[in-house]
């Protein structure tokens, strides 16, 4: 899932239209892409006071991970000022995107009840390469950033591929999230590798090529005396 969803609730038709237009325009500038939804479940709900007595089923049924109220006067936390300004909307979208990424990081998968999509997992992807000061916070962060730059991964996958502890991966992802450098998305668990050709000989050739490549990296590492190969390369 590459985008986040928003919904409006009790927002005047004018502000509703404004919000939708602004967010559509801001897609591309905002850290994440946002799409409106009318299905009652959203990542973000803009809560207005246009009709405080609205007790309709649709209004009550809105379930959102984050709520931001539209208020007149000085806005507090989780509030946005009326009249709406595009800069404030952008700030709000980015703040909520960061909060969602952070809460995804803190989600402790084993303690959670299995979701209907039992195979779904939170995968993290680098938005861009982190500043050197962040990478120097821990001797393993450079390796973790390199692994994550190569492909997105869930926390456990990152730990497995890098050979770095789960705790260190957590610290790394948290540090990235604070800087807005990581994007979290739900993804299906990786499907089994597609069958390569039909013939056993074709499969064998493909496997040999992969193994020869891994072996080349290992040889080069040995020859140059650099680092330890990743667990995957070691196993190959």
């Amino acid at each position, binding site marked *: 899932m590459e985008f986040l969803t928003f919904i409006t609730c009790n927002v005047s038709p004018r502000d509703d239209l404004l919000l939708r237009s602004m967010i559509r325009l801001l897609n591309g500038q905002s850290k994440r892409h946002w799409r409106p939804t009318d299905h009652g479940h959203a990542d973000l709900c803009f809560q207005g006071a246009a009709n405080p007595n609205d007790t309709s089923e649709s209004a009550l049924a809105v379930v959102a991970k984050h709520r931001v109220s539209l208020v007149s006067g000085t806005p507090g936390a989780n509030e946005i000022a009326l009249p709406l300004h595009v800069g404030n909307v952008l700030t709000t979208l980015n703040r909520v995107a960061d909060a969602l990424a952070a809460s995804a990081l803190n989600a402790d998968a084993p303690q959670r009840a299995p979701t209907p999509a039992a195979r779904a997992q939170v995968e993290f992807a*680098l*938005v*861009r*390469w*982190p*500043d*050197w000061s962040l990478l120097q916070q821990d001797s393993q962060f*450079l*390796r973790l*950033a*390199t*692994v994550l*730059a*190569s*492909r997105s991964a869930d926390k456990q996958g990152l730990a497995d*591929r890098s050979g770095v502890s789960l705790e260190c991966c957590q610290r790394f992802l948290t540090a990235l999230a604070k800087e807005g450098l990581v994007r979290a998305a739900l993804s299906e668990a990786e499907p089994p590798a597609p069958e390569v050709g039909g013939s056993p000989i074709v499969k064998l050739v493909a496997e040999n*090529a992969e193994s*020869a*490549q*891994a072996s*080349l*990296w290992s*040889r*080069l*590492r*040995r*020859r*140059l*005396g*650099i*680092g330890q*190969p*990743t667990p*995957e*390369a070691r196993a190959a």
Partner: protein
Amino acid sequence: MIERKLLFTGATGAGKTTAIAAISETKMVRTDVPNSDPTVSKALTTVGLDYGEITLDNGEKFRLFGTPGQQRFAFTWPILSRGAIGLIILIDNSAADPLADIVTYARGFQPLIESAACVVGVGRLETHVRPSLDDHSRTLASVGLLCPIIPVDVRQKADVLLLIDILLTQLENKR
């Protein structure tokens, strides 16, 4: 067939020849000629290619190629890119416009970067702190690329090895 070839590129004076010399076990093949460009403070400059070799424990050769850095030699870049497993871009932070340099090489080698692996080493940061590594990272992101970017001094063999370590880590983790 697995290619055994690694490519170094970057601006004139960024240290491509030095980096290859640091790890090549054979005498390098160099195509250096007298430099006549007064904006570059070097006596010699590479106009064809640099070439070095590493012998692996099974006797196979791993080849190291360096490209000419100047844009006028961009015609050599796709030729030298063929079959490379990865690219090391070296940036000289004391150059007139290091951010323009990183865009030049990112764009010039985009097919190789996207199909293989790439790492950027930024030199002379200790004397030229601006642009910062973060500025380089933002610039790369602005052209849609994400590559590791680290500070280096390619006169130090350890720094060259770190670049290769990062490149190999990427290759080992590619889907």
